[in-house]
């Protein structure tokens, strides 16, 4: 008979989970202001990179538009716009 461990299996905790953020956008959809959780809103100085992910359409579709932006305090932040729920998230890349 198969012996089962009494201690529960340790679950892996994923790193880099996205956090919800408030973003104001330009009329073309580019972020212009970002308010990170617990921080005041900051203007976007520059957009360094931008890409899109469309994946796992066969399972639970993922459709994201990523931006790496430089805020006016010099911080580099990776943001994405979830195109399915139309919400913005910050994420450690």
């Amino acid at each position, binding site marked *: 008979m198969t*012996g089962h*461990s009494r201690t529960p299996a340790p679950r*892996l*905790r*994923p*790193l880099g989970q*996205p956090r919800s953020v408030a973003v104001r956008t330009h009329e073309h959809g580019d972020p212009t202001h970002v308010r990170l959780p617990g921080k005041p809103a900051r203007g976007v100085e520059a957009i360094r990179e931008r890409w899109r*992910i469309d994946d796992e359409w066969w399972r639970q579709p993922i459709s994201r538009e990523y931006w790496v932006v430089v805020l006016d305090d010099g911080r580099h932040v990776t943001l994405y716009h979830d195109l399915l729920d139309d919400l913005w998230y910050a994420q450690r890349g």
Partner: protein
Amino acid sequence: MSQPHSRSHSVPAHQGRGWAPLQESTLRAASQEWASSSGKNAGTGWASGPGAGTVFVPERTRVSAGSRRALCLWLPTFELRLELMRSPELDSTSVALLSAGEHTRRTIWQVSERAHEHGVRPGQFVSQAVSLCPSLTLLEPDPAHYDAAVDAMLEILAEISPVLEPAGRGRVFLGTDGLDRLFGSPARQARLALRALFRIFPRPLVASTRAGMAPGKFGAWVAAAAARSGEPRIISEQELPAFLGSCPVSALPVDALVVQRLERLGVRTLDGLRRFPEPSLVAQFGEDGRNALAWATGRRIDPVRPWHRPKPIRVTMDFPNPVGLLATLHSGLDRLIERALSRPSRRGRSVTSARMGAQLEGGGSWFVEAVLKDPTSQRERIASPLRMKMEIAPPPRAVETLILEFTQFGAPSTQTGLFDRKDESGRSTAGRDMQQGEVPSTLRDAIKELKLRLGHSPLYRVVEIDPWSRIPERRHALLSFDP
């Protein structure tokens, strides 16, 4: 299929007290499966070879170890029936269970009656089967589900007799010596065992179970194969030779080629086999010939021996998202081996056999097993054969939970394992390069103290999950660090 599936393998109604072959292919496959299982595990399978736990006992003598009188419970195509219990909507369709994927071209393992009518047979390639029956539903095997059912069955039957010996998944022998005073006549004991199965299996599955009782395992097995579903067949000592005489040679748990050659020689029944002198059978078939004659005459009585399986060490790892990359699974395997080796229940024993499995995305499971060449407690030597097996037969779908079991153990290892390090002070460890995976004793002590205070280890380590994933949160994860 207009009939319920559970009746698909029932013996024709004309079957009386004599031998009536059920489905020749089913019986043959079951005998061969049994014969082959003995080679892998002489302790649990059919004792077919010399020194494999078989004893020759003159009639009416008692067996000191094990039970001479055996009750065999047999559920033909057990795994497929379990699948049909799980998905009753498939009961009226053509269904086939795939064999475990060790080859690039998968083959059919078990078939339903409807599929059988279309010409689908076990051992055929999937392409052949589908061309014969385009509406065929193919099912991936789910070994974890089947093993759980077997475990439940053994647990229930252990309440009737402590002498239990499984032989394959759908077949188990119960030693019934000494049970008469407890449960009454042999027929009543057999019915009791069948009734016990109702507690864990649905009625149609139990109704298809065959039960046979006779002296020795071979007699009991043949009696079960000749019995009607749900109606135990009891063969007494006196009846045994006559009963065996009418059995087909395909019931013998010997090499398939031996059976084929016997049939080509026109020997169809065990009675026909008995006419040959032993030296000529040995000259033709070697040890198999000698064994076949001993079984055919009823001289060979294999007692049911209590089955012992050491409690396995089992560790699992849940992935936050299903993983398909072999590299990630390899890394997960390494972590699991480390954790299993560090289990106190190992008590320093080395590992001789390990089983790796997975719960798959969308249901189902997958398993590979490796018997190690030498007992070891070194991670790499345990991981290497499992990795190789995984390369040959990878999980058919993405993995949600990875499972590792150490199933057989050897003598305590004299080698220094990863987690068997001698305690050293933090200072002396700090003075030299740390080996990968090594934990200084100071850190170990600190974790122990934190665990006492908080009830759990608050330390984590970062492990790679899928470092090249396009989705950042799937690249790395935290795993609790508790050396």
